[in-house]
Structures are given as structure tokens and as C-alpha cells.
């Protein structure tokens, strides 16, 4: 199956093409074909996994060249798929979670008349995402990278008849474009330095390049990762991306696409190996984003936006781990996998709540939903315990390892990164508990017309499966370091490092902070009365509610000056370039008007003109003696 991995991309791609081409004729069965295509891709991935497990660890990677993409002299690019432990891990995450979300969407989008188009886009996304993770060169990765960008744009703006949703889609697209430029620059640097763009060659030659080159390439890659993964300073689009249907938020903006940046950093390990400064910047970006996201999450009343802030924060953890180097790579991916499960599960839970509450998202109008929606409450609760990092749920195994790794090192770094990660865990516990208690506990603050009810089985079953994953996946993968051993051929073997604090102390501190956060949230939002309108708050809360004024900053620093530049250019174009051409044309035109007067329409005056001309010609000939 490993050599047939291209099928995993081809199936959803073909399904998307069929759904888009057939149009309304596929309305009746299109969604089930979408589910089947995604499920088929999962089976292909599973087959590849089984085949790989049967081989010794160092022979597991298989690079298949499908055809030559660009056969051009120095730039020779093949379309090749690399099925190694890292990419297969992603394939399984994408297709498994993706298939569950496909099933969920069948029910969630039931009353939408464009359900078939929705599934076409979902399949397109799955195909592009698989291409991204299976590509064996940066150029092919870039194809998938842009593909998921397009799918994300189409799905955020799926209900584009609402102008603000269409704007949100545009915003995501434009911000992502800034990151894409980073990837293009990185590819340019790598091509001039190494003369190739495939991972294998770059991995071999990276040691020979200068630190400056590698640092430049690393920072450009980081810019790309920041755009796609909504990391500081390109994080502003993720909150607005919640305009898309909730299954989209679960699949694209929580479990898979937004983690592509982390994948890119881990995949580019050879580059970062030689650029310690770039690596530190990656870790700093991760640390900033994890704090920023947590603080925003504490203030949001919109359930989806709070979850989006949480996603940002958790990806910040992954970036931090990826910035720690080989010691953190495996844990970054581990957290990515567990996060994919529990966050997708919670988003589906949020979708289920919205389904029950007439698509309301304001948590101040929720409360006491645990009685009305038991399955949603239990599954969401498991995701909540997982993200808090309560043992033995998934998040504990992955996040704790990241916090531990953050404390490894020398000088100021372990203290800054370690303490940020530690405090971040406490903040996470607070804002996730706040969200959980505000939604499911306390008193009912429902608006009059809602009658909460449990969602149909098509929606609850995927939530249950994801909840089971949130509960036990971490334990299963962490036992005997299974997951780190599995990734070792890609991320490299790492000797065990001792953190600057004893491990037991770190674990204990983490758990104490988590407990403090959760209990604090319980007193404020579980037991106490929650006002139905957001109360006036301190400057800090207002700042967090407004996403740290990131939109205003972007508007003032980039958008306005940019608009001035474009307006000046438009004016210059109209006044100078167009002006010159128009003036000239007007000149010829007035010359024509003047000479038109000669045309009198009088036959005899024409005859006179001819005669006079003739006389002049003869006179010239005679007098000039020609």
C-alpha cells in the first residue's frame, strides 16, 4: 500500500471534481460519496501504516516518483510522494479526523441547500492537505500549501451571502498570502544555495551551507508557518475564520491545516539544525502566541472564537516545542495529534451546542446545557480534561512533555520558555474551564425561543469517537515512548536531557496551576451568577476581548499606509501616464477638427484648390527649372 499512497490524494480529489462537475445532479448522494472518498483515503493510509510497521525502522521511508513536473535544466522537479513515519502520521490524522467530520457534516449541513458543494470543498481540502504532507519537495509541498489555502478560503466564505463572512474569507486569504511569500523566499534561498528543492538533497547538503544562509531560510520558513498556523504576528485571521461552518472550523482551523506550519518547521529540521538563532525565534514566536492566545481566550464570549484563541495558543505550544530543536520535534507532533483529536472533538461539540441553540454562539446565553445534551456534555468534558492536561487524558502526555522540554537547556532560555509554558498551562485551564462551565453548568440563561435538544446520531457518534481518542490516545501512544520511537527515523534520536528543574517538580507545578485555573473558573463562572450581558471591564479585559487590538494595529501600520501608497500610484497613473496619452490624443483630435474646416462640400472650391495647386506645381517646375 505504501507505493499506492497517491491513491489517498487521488480519491478525494476525484470525488471533489465529480461533485463540482455534476452540480445539482449529485445533490442526492454527493455527501455520501464525499464521506466514502475520505474514508477510502483513510484506508489507504492505514494500509501504508501496516506495511511500514512490518519493516525495520530505518527502511520505513519510501519515496515514489510519480512523474516529472518541471524538467528544466538546473531546475528539475519531480512529483514525488514521501511516505515516512512523519507523513503517514499526518495522513492518518487528516483522514481519520477528516472522515469523522465528513460524517458529522452530513447531519450538520442537512438543511443547507449547498451541502454537495460543501462536501466538494471538504474533499478538495483533504486532497490538498494530503499532498502537502506527502510531498517530497518544497515545491510540491507549496502546491498543497496553496491548495489548502484555497479550500480554507472557499469554506470560510461558504455562506458568503453575508458580507462579513465574505470579508473574513478575504482576510484569511490575504494574511495567508503574506506567509506564502515567506515560503517562496525560502524556496528561492534553498534553490540558489543547494540547487534543489527536495527534502532528501537539502537534508544532505544543509550542513555545508553558511549559518547566515540557513538563518535567512529558517526565518522565511517561520514567516510561512506563522501565516498558515496563525502565529504571532500573523494571527489575526483565525478568529474571523470562525465565520465558516463549524465542521470546517473543526477540520481546517483546529485539527489539520493550521498545524501545517508546525509540520513545515519539523520537516525543515536540517535547515534549523544549522541556524540556532532562527530556532530561538521560532520558540519565541511560539511562546508569545501561546500566551496571547490564552489571554484572548479568557475574555471571549463567543464559544467558537474562544476555541479559536485556544487553538492559537495550543499551536503556540507546538511551535515552542518545534523551536527547541530535536528534543522537541517529536513532542510537537505528539501534541499536534492529541490536539487534533480533542480540539476537533470540542469544535464538533460546539457545533452540536449551536445546533441545539439556533446557531447562537454567545456563551452568556448558554448555561446548564448538561441536562439537555448529555452526550455533548460528556464528550466535550473529555476534550476539556484532555486540553487541561489532567492525567491520564491525552493532553497530559503531550503538553507535559513540551513543558518539560521547554525547561531543558542553558542560560536564560529554559527559564523563559519553561515558565511561559508552565503559566500557559494554568491560563489554559482557566479559559477552557470558563468556556466549559459557562456552556454546560450554572443557571440556564437561554433566550426565550430556544429549546435545546441532543443532536442526531450522525453527529454524536463522531463526537464520541473523538472523545475516546481525546481520553486514551495519549496514554496509548506515550506508553513505552511508542510515538517518539516511531518518529525517530525522521526527527532523529535524542539523548535524554535533564531539565533545569526536577521533572517531578515541573509536573507538580503544572498540575497545581491547572487545578488553580480550573477551580478559579468554577468559582467565577460555574457557581456564581454569570451576567447575560458582558459587564464593563478593566482595560486588560477589553484589550483581550479585542484580540489585543491586532486589527487596529494592522490597519494603522500596514493597511492605511498601503492604501496611501496605492492611491498615490493610482493618482500618478491617472495624471502622468494616462495624462500624457490623453493630452496627445486630444492634440491630434483638435488638429483634425481644425483641418475639417477645409472640407466645405463646395465642388467648385475643390476645383479651385486643384487648379491653384496645379499652378503652384507648374510654377515651381518652371521657376525652379527642375
Amino acid at each position, binding site marked *: 500500500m505504501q507505493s499506492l499512497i497517491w491513491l489517498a490524494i487521488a480519491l478525494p480529489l476525484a470525488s471533489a471534481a465529480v461533485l463540482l462537475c455534476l452540480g445539482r445532479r449529485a445533490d442526492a448522494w454527493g455527501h455520501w460519496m464525499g464521506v466514502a472518498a475520505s474514508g477510502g483515503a483513510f484506508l489507504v493510509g492505514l494500509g501504508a501504516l501496516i506495511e511500514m510497521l512490518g519493516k525495520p525502522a530505518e527502511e520505513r521511508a519510501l519515496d515514489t516518483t510519480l512523474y516529472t513536473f518541471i524538467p528544466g535544466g538546473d531546475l528539475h522537479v519531480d512529483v514525488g510522494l514521501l511516505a515516512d513515519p512523519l507523513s503517514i502520521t499526518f495522513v492518518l490524522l487528516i483522514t481519520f479526523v477528516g472522515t469523522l467530520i465528513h460524517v458529522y457534516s452530513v447531519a450538520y449541513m442537512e438543511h443547507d441547500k449547498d451541502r454537495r458543494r460543501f462536501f466538494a470543498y471538504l474533499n478538495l481540502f483533504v486532497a490538498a492537505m494530503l499532498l502537502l504532507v506527502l510531498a517530497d519537495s518544497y515545491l510540491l509541498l507549496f502546491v498543497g500549501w496553496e491548495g489548502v489555502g484555497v479550500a480554507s478560503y472557499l469554506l470560510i466564505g461558504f455562506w458568503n451571502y453575508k458580507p462579513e463572512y465574505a470579508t473574513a474569507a478575504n482576510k484569511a486569504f490575504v494574511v495567508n498570502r503574506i506567509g506564502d511569500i515567506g515560503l517562496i523566499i525560502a524556496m528561492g534561498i534553498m534553490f540558489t544555495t543547494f540547487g534543489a528543492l527536495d527534502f532528501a538533497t537539502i537534508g544532505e547538503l544543509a550542513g555545508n551551507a553558511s549559518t547566515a544562509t540557513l538563518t535567512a531560510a529558517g526565518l522565511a520558513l517561520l514567516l510561512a508557518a506563522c501565516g498558515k498556523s496563525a502565529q504571532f504576528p500573523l494571527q489575526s485571521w483565525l478568529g474571523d475564520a470562525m465565520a465558516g461552518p463549524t465542521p470546517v472550523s473543526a477540520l481546517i482551523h483546529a485539527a489539520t491545516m493550521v498545524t501545517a506550519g508546525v509540520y513545515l518547521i519539523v520537516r525543515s529540521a536540517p535547515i534549523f539544525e544549522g541556524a540556532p538563532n532562527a530556532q530561538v525565534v521560532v520558540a519565541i514566536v511560539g511562546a508569545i502566541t501561546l500566551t496571547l492566545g490564552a489571554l484572548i481566550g479568557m475574555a471571549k464570549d463567543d464559544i467558537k472564537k474562544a476555541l479559536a484563541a485556544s487553538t492559537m495558543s495550543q499551536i503556540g505550544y507546538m511551535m515552542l516545542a518545534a523551536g527547541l530543536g530535536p528534543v522537541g520535534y517529536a513532542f510537537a507532533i505528539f501534541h499536534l495529534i492529541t490536539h487534533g483529536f480533542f480540539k476537533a472533538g470540542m469544535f464538533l461539540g460546539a457545533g452540536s451546542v449551536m445546533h441545539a441553540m439556533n446557531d447562537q454562539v454567545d456563551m452568556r446565553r448558554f448555561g446548564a446545557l448538561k441536562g439537555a445534551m448529555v452526550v455533548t456534555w460528556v464528550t466535550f468534558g473529555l476534550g476539556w480534561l484532555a486540553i487541561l492536561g489532567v492525567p491520564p487524558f491525552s493532553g497530559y502526555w503531550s503538553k507535559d512533555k513540551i513543558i518539560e522540554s521547554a525547561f531543558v537547556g542553558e542560560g536564560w532560555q529554559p527559564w523563559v520558555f519553561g515558565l511561559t509554558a508552565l503559566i500557559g498551562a494554568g491560563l489554559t485551564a482557566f479559559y477552557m474551564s470558563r468556556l466549559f462551565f459557562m456552556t454546560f453548568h450554572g443557571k440556564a440563561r437561554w433566550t426565550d425561543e430556544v429549546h435545546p435538544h441532543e443532536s442526531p446520531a450522525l453527529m454524536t457518534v463522531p463526537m464520541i469517537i473523538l472523545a475516546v481518542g481525546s481520553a486514551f490516545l495519549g496514554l496509548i501512544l506515550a506508553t513505552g515512548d511508542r510515538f517518539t520511537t516511531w518518529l525517530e527515523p525522521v526527527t532523529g534520536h535524542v539523548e535524554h536531557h535533564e531539565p533545569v528543574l526536577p521533572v517531578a517538580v515541573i509536573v507538580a507545578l503544572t498540575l497545581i496551576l491547572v487545578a488553580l485555573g480550573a477551580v478559579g473558573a468554577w468559582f467565577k463562572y460555574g457557581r456564581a451568577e454569570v451576567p447575560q450581558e458582558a459587564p464593563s471591564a478593566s482595560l486588560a479585559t477589553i484589550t483581550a476581548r479585542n484580540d489585543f487590538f491586532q486589527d487596529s494595529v494592522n490597519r494603522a501600520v500596514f493597511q492605511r499606509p498601503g492604501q496611501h501608497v496605492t492611491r498615490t500610484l493610482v493618482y500618478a497613473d491617472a495624471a502622468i501616464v494616462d495624462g500624457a496619452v490623453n493630452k496627445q490624443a486630444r492634440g491630434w483630435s483638435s488638429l483634425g477638427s481644425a483641418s475639417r*474646416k477645409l*472640407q466645405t*462640400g*463646395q465642388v*467648385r472650391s475643390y*476645383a*479651385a484648390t486643384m487648379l491653384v495647386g496645379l499652378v503652384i506645381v507648374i510654377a515651381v517646375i518652371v521657376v525652379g527649372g527642375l
Partner: protein
Amino acid sequence: MNPMNYVILAAILFSIGAAAVLLRRNAIVAFMGVELMLNAANLALVAFSRIHGELDGQIMAFFVMVVAAAEVVVGLAIIIAVFRARQTISLDEPAELKG
């Protein structure tokens, strides 16, 4: 007789014809002026042929006559068409092509 006199006569005839074309409003009269100019040219051609002792000019005169015959046909047809359309043969009346 000095053949140069014929050339002078041709010049006088041409001038009369040109004056007729320029000064008269009546299309038929102007048309006659054109014929006069053509014949003046013929006279000059024949005279030059005689002066130089060659036949080229005389051959040319025959061509001019043929062209003049054709021109008369077309010209008179135009005049009749104009008369039918506007009940006038004044040359100054049709001025639609004024710019």
C-alpha cells in the same frame, strides 16, 4: 505656320474651360468647361507631337478622347441623378460633405 501658336491657343482654351468650371453654377455649363479643358489638352498634345516630329502625343490624344467619352457618360448620369433627387443642377446646392 508656327506650331507654337497652337500651344498658345490650347492654353487660352484651357483657361476658358477652367474659368467656366470655377465660375459657373450650372452643372451642364461647368461640364462643358471640363470638356473644353480636355480638348485644350488634346490640342496641346497634338501640337507638341508636331513640334517634336513624333507620334506619341497623337496616340495620347486618342486615349484622352476615349477617356473623355467615358467621362461624359458618367458625368451626365451623375447630373441626371442629382436633378432627379433635388430638382436642381446647381453645383453649390449639394453640400452634404461639408466638414
